[in-house]
């Protein structure tokens, strides 16, 4: 197993922006992460970095642990009974472990978009405003309206829903619902957005829109995306990590992974031998 990340010491505090081997600013880092579901060793000693201004794609066959690792970055695995995570994960150099950072703060800073578009069974505006509400940010009125509009604009949904903000979110199409979920995550004003197969339930046109959106969000947010779709990974990401059986096989720039993989297993996967 080879890891293409530098083996240098991590700084103890968030003094200055750290960079990875390629010179990109690191937003989140995972070092020596292991995840256990009961007796199952789901993730084995994985180290990975999410760059600030890039999209990092996590690819690999089903059950390889890519979603599990993604969920480590905002500690969604905490809520799963019998799941145990070890290792060092940092956000801007600060450890995010339970003893170090409040999970509410972490999830406000590291938002998540899930596999299926699951808006809350409420109106469109309430869906977007929910994050603001729980964190007690914007109260009501113009301030909240502005946040809702900005988030919906950010998710490229504003023009489609501006006339029916109070209609139920489930009246939207599947692709619109997923962009609403992205708007919902944007409304909390996160620094990182984790996307867990955001397009797997969408048709090709809706998928294209979401991919376009991901491209627009790049730079503003650090983005990590899990995907089954290799072409999608190639289209939207700048860094790609290939997982197999709970191990990180290869991690590097997307162009390199897809055109000139260093490991045979990676080559087999991207050329369609298995997966």
């Amino acid at each position, binding site marked *: 197993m080879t890891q293409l990340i530098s083996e240098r010491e991590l700084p103890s505090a968030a003094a200055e922006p750290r960079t990875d081997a390629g010179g990109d600013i690191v937003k989140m880092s995972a070092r020596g992460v292991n995840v256990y579901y009961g007796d199952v060793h789901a993730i084995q000693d994985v180290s990975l970095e999410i760059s600030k201004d890039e999209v990092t794609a996590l690819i690999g066959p089903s059950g390889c642990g890519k979603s599990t690792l993604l969920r480590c970055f*905002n500690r*969604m695995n905490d*809520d799963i*009974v019998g799941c145990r995570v070890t290792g060092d994960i940092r956000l801007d150099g600060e450890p995010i472990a339970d003893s170090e950072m409040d*999970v*509410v*703060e*972490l*999830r*406000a800073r590291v*938002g*998540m978009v*899930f596999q*299926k578009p*699951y*808006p*809350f*069974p*409420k109106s469109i505006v309430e869906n977007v405003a*929910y*994050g603001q*509400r*729980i*964190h007690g940010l914007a109260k009501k009125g113009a301030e909240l309206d502005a946040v809702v509009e900005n988030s919906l604009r950010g998710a490229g949904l504003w023009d489609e829903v501006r006339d029916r903000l109070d209609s*139920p*979110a*489930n009246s939207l199409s599947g692709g619109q619902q997923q962009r609403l*979920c992205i708007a*919902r*995550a944007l409304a*909390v004003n996160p620094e990182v957005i984790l996307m867990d197969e955001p397009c797997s339930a969408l048709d090709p046109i809706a998928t294209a829109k979401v991919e376009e959106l991901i491209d627009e969000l790049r730079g503003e947010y650090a983005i990590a995306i899990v995907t089954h779709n290799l072409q999608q990974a190639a289209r939207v990401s700048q860094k790609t990590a290939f997982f197999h059986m709970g191990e990180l096989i290869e991690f590097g720039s997307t162009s390199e992974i897809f055109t000139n993989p260093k490991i045979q297993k990676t080559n087999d996967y991207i050329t369609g031998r298995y997966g």
Partner: protein
Amino acid sequence: MRNCAMVDPKSHWQSQRFKSRLRRRNRFERQFRYLGIAAIALAGLSLSVLLVSVLANGLGATYRTEIALDIEFDPEILGIEVPGAGETAEITASADFRAVLRTSLMQRFPDAEGRSEVRELVALLSRGAAAELADRLVEDPALLGQRIEAWIPASDDVNFWLKSEAGDSGSNSRLSERQVAWIEALAADDRVARRFNGRFFSSGDSREPELAGIGGALIGSALTLLVTLAVSFPLGVAAAVYLEEFAPDNRWTRQLEININNLAAVPSIVFGLLGLAVFLGLFGMPRSAPVVGGLTLALMTLPVIIIASRASIAAVPFWIRESARGLGASPVQVVAHQVLPIAMPGIVTGTLLGLARAMGETAPLLMIGMVAFIVDVPTNFTDAASALPVQIFLWADSPERGFVEKVSGAILVLLALLGILNGAAILLRQKFEQHW
């Protein structure tokens, strides 16, 4: 070339054997459907027989036989002092309204002579007639000294004689020939009639069927159920939320779950015993009070609400929680903002069904003394009170024939209330339901 060419498919599907088997299968399908229809029809038939029989008996409870008499509120006979100008008469407890009734009857039937005949004459009227007359004078003291025509409740025996007269006149009537002659004379004058019995809905229990009402039992049931709801709903939902959302999954919580399920199946009289021992014995709360009844029924309803609420909460899709948590909602926020609103229709339905069951419950109330003969309509949670099913039980146990229709009438009211509760459950369910 097919691999499975054991039988040539074409000849197989067209063979006689296959066709007869197909016919058998279709016949079975048909018979199964008929069986289902028959079962539903049987259930519907039994229900309609029950309803019709209860209705036939019970509607009679809302009517009673009354006799129109010329009543003179004679101060002399009553023994009430005539008030001076501007004063109102003081109607004392010793005022003799029976004498007024007796006088009126004797004026109508001067042929009644001697103590026993007069007693028979007075026996045409209900024993509560004097009290109703007194109420009327208290309401309107200006009637003192006036002469009015008033409808006076007849006795239960008269009521039954009139009812059975249509069928066979030689029935085992409890009226004497003289009494029958009097009634017939009154009836010939159009002075006997079955009139709407408002008392049935407003007054408390009585020894006399024509005076007994379900008012007290209704209020008692309402007060009891209010206590039950106020105690069991918040406790039950809180317990369900904790068990479903927060409790660790270990040996203890699993044990707890089994016990709650078992509690829902415990015979209700056991909860009555518990209420007797704890609320009356340990805390010394008042006997027969709606607050105790309500608490006892709350014990009984709690497991039902917990189970219904847990099922409803567990049915909330996992991703709702996941999405909310992903935005940084705390566990309590997830429950309060997302899970409970979605689970509410199920919780409300379960609660109302639990309450409906509690409302029809008799046994636990027997244990804590709500089975008493209570004449007064309760006004607060600690007054002695009865409840509808207990009242039905009490009346069903009474020897007077008049109570038979009271029982049916009370059952009708109970059924109507249950129907309203279930209807409310459906309405609330629709109101709270969120679609996605």
